[in-house]
């Protein structure tokens, strides 16, 4: 019985003939797996870091040299070749299979993306480099040398071709990076398990080896089953760029995508900003209010958990306290700790003047008794496409907000697009007026959104602001004045007032935006 073969006897003279043609098939499979890991790493690096030529070149370079390293190291393996081969398959399965999820996590949560990337490529390359020499040595007594070299290398290259075609045509579009890497990890581990049958005569305690195979297969299967939490295949088709981070929170689905030299944040599938032009949006949200109330010290931000509005606020040296009320702790944590976002918002949420409160802004504004009146309130909620958001655009909300403000405070409210959703925009303006605010609506172009609108307001009458900070990227004194002029196709239209008990804005907004989708 094979089980009684001891490992010590394996390199001895006692040989049971191996099924060489079946082992050639495993060469084909491991070659395909190896190339898939390389392509996953290269693609992922180009998505996350941009500059695909550099990323692919360095990934391929590191990978191939690591394979060379693996081939070199193979000579130090003397005994128990069959056992080593199975171990090798399981190791490649784990490192290669989990490479994509690990790299995404490293990108989202650490500063060590590049070291992780090249570390993984190096590890996978080295392990893959060991595979073929060891397999050839296992087979060397079974097959003539010239047939062995021809067979192994032919199938190695064909496997690579197979993978290189499958990857862009089927795997990426249908499965995405995470599932592809996990699936090929499973395949790799399956080859390991299969080889315990093919190499039965040369292996030690089979039960132990197969148990290891089972553990690796289970881990990868769990990973694959959990991959939907990371990204949905359907979602990848909705977003035009690659998803680099996704998280379901109790409140929303947060997705970060990366592509075309910038990255984008989506909440429940709705674009919140693109790093390419968010400065336009956030400069326009923040600075006009400061022009109305230049000596503002206490600032309230409702929504805006990405910290980008706070970045602009902190450019005003007189600011002493910023209270940011955002529903979702996952969002503000991301903005505080994820390198990508922290870099963009200049660590604004970590500034000692800033206090982050995770609460429903409406409930907080109604119930908080601890904060003194604010000089400026910046209202940066997602568009009113659901009732739970629609309430944040009602007379009730604006009246509650007014109670939290000083008598000459300034307020700016992001108010969707006056071009795409003209009635919705003017409905927000009318609602603020009904809540007792004097309003000055304005707009600008934010290319990743559309022409975008805001309502600047104060409990008292005020003039159109004409001055702003120097050294901004979009706003200048001239640009400031220009924002307050409305062309004819966006000019005021009569609109109903949005109240808690009618929620007209949600209906209006949904109807207006439907025309453009």
């Amino acid at each position, binding site marked *: 019985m094979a089980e009684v073969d001891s490992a010590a006897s394996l390199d001895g003279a006692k040989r049971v003939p191996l099924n060489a043609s079946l082992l050639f098939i495993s060469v084909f499979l491991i070659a395909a797996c190896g190339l898939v890991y390389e392509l996953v790493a290269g693609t992922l690096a180009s998505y996350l870091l941009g500059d695909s030529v550099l990323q692919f070149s360095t990934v391929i370079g590191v990978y191939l040299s690591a394979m060379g390293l693996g081939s070199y190291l193979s000579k130090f393996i003397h005994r128990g070749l069959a056992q080593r081969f199975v171990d090798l398959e399981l190791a490649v399965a784990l490192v290669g299979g989990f490479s994509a999820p690990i790299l995404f996590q490293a990108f989202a949560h650490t500063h060590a993306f590049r070291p992780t990337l090249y570390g993984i490529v190096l590890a996978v390359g080295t392990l893959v480099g060991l595979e073929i020499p060891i397999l050839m040595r296992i087979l060397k007594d079974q097959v003539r040398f010239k047939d062995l070299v021809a067979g192994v290398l032919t199938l190695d290259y064909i496997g690579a071709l197979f993978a290189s075609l499958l990857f862009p045509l089927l795997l990426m579009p249908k499965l995405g990076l995470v599932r592809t890497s996990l699936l090929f990890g499973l395949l790799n581990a399956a080859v390991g398990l299969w080889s315990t049958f093919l190499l039965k005569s040369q292996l030690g305690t089979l039960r132990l080896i197969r148990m290891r195979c089972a553990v690796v297969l289970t881990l990868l299967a769990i990973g694959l089953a959990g991959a939907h939490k990371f990204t949905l295949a359907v979602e990848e088709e909705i977003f035009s760029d690659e998803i680099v981070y996704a998280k379901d929170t*109790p409140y929303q689905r947060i997705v970060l995508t990366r592509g075309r030299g910038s990255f984008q944040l989506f909440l429940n599938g709705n674009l919140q900003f693109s790093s390419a032009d968010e400065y336009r949006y956030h400069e326009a949200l923040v600075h006009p209010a400061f022009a109305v109330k230049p000596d503002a010290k206490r600032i309230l931000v409702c929504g805006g958990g990405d910290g980008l509005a706070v970045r602009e606020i902190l450019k005003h040296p007189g600011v002493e306290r910023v209270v940011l009320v955002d529903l979702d702790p996952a969002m503000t944590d991301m903005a505080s700790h994820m390198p990508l976002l922290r870099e963009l918002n200049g660590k604004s949420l970590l500034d000692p003047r800033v206090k982050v409160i995770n609460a*429903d802004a409406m409930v907080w504004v109604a119930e908080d008794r601890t904060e003194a009146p604010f000089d400026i309130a910046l209202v940066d909620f997602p568009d009113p496409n659901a009732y*739970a958001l629609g*309430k944040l655009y009602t007379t009730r909300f604006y009246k509650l907000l007014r109670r939290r403000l000083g008598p000459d405070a300034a307020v700016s409210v992001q108010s969707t697009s006056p071009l795409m959703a003209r009635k919705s925009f003017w409905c927000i303006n009318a609602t603020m007026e009904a809540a007792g605010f004097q309003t000055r609506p304005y707009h600008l172009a934010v290319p990743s959104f559309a022409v975008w609108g805001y309502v600047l307001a104060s409990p008292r009458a005020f003039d159109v602001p004409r001055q702003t900070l120097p050294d901004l990227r979009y706003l200048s004194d001239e640009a400031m004045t220009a924002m307050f002029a409305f062309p004819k196709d966006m000019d005021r239209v009569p609109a109903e007032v949005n*109240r808690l008990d009618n929620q007209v804005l949600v209906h209006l907004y949904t109807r207006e935006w439907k025309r453009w989708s």
Partner: protein
Amino acid sequence: MKRRTILSTAAALPFAGLACKRGRKFPFEGELLGPSLELGHHVRDGALPEPAFFQPIDVVIVGGGIAGLSAARHFEGLGFKNYLLLELESGVGGTSRSGKNGVSAYPLAAHYVPAPTKDLTHLVKLLDEAGVIEGYDAKGEPLFAEQHLVRGPDERIFFHGQWWEGLYLHAGESTEDARQYRAFFQEIDRWTLWRDTKGRKAFTLPRSLGSDAPEVRALDTLSFKAWLEARGFSSERLLWLLDYAVRDDFGSRLDTTSAWAGIFYFAARKQGPGEESRPLLTWPEGNGFLVRHLFNSCKSRVRTGHGVTRVEPQKDGTLRVSAWCTRENRAVGFAAKRVVFAGPVQMAGRVVPALQKARGKAFFEAFAATPWLVANLTLRNRPAEHGFPLAWDNVIRQSEGLGYVVATHQSLRDHGPTVWTYYHALAGPDPKADWLKLAAMDWRACAALVVDDLKKAHPDIETHLARLDVMRWGHAMIRPRPGLLWSPLLDLARQPFQGVHFAHSDLSGLALFEEAQDHGIRAAEEVMAALQHQP
């Protein structure tokens, strides 16, 4: 065994089946909250001792529901203080009581009132004092602060595996359905416009201000079902909506509801044809919000935990009121000049033996009321679902229950823990048999009834539940069966009896806040007038 007992036992079988499933375990806690059945049993058994002393007082109000509290508030408004209000339960409010836990306040039964027009002067005044009214328009109509009006979305219905906006499902209706739907509301508009020779509307609130013309009264001679059939209304969707409406507002079905009541439901709250019906006022704690304002005006003269067991007219014209103090387990007595009996008519028969004798059995049987099961479900978080988002009122189409209202809807909390209040009117043909069934159900049986119904729309509801508390109401709503609303029995029930004045929504035949308030104030006025003639 009497025939009646056999029938009610047979009717109880499906429920008994539930009650017998001892093995069923729920991953949440809860209890039966009430009502206090024990005292009622003692009264019937005559097991309670007599009070040692009857304390002289001008007026005793029996019952702290909306009618009793409104009478007390009226006394306070007049500066009259020589009265006491006795309430059996530990809190006042009757079916408008509310509860509260760490998540939210919630109603125990009644949870809204339609925003009144200026004609409902008493209610407008109460709401104004409670801060619900912001001002008045040029015509003197009240303007309501938006946070007290139901926040949109107000209603949704679960049908064919998903939620839809509104209670009437327009999606998939046939042209005939649509025609009948329009025709029904045209008929309602006709009644909204209708005026009698004195210029009175056919249906208005309180109903005492409406017309008593024969044409209007004739509507009370037939059931809503018969009235609908006579006009060719057969659309299943329309009939479902109307049946739901009468179950929800009256605790009865189309065939056990007077046509007058059915039309009243739709027409009384409209100013004119085509107008939307009145918006609804609601609070997280339901009508407990209004109870608090009524109670604040009279609380020093309210005694809770005092169940009145007997009211006996004396030869000297006073009334001996015996009550049982449940906290101290002792009898207390009052010698009152007048009594405002602000409980259900049937209870008056049990507590005032002379009345029972004078009015006879048939009189009391006319005031049969529908029992209700109301459950408060505390959820750790909200179940995932399909279709239209969570509304204030959420109704499952294929259910005997009435659905649930969301307590946190009005407090604007759209995420995280919440409390749902689930309603089930036992609208069977025999309310007494229904009550025996309900009273026999333990917590487990009640919880099973509620959970199994909600599972139709929320299959994973049990995993979200932290608590499920059940309130069983024996006398939740007077049933406006055909013939009651214009019956001479209602007039008789309003007549004072040997110094006892009556105040309860039963006296209108409609279990509505406005009616209860109206009767409470009327009874208080009667008492004040009587006391002035009797120093």
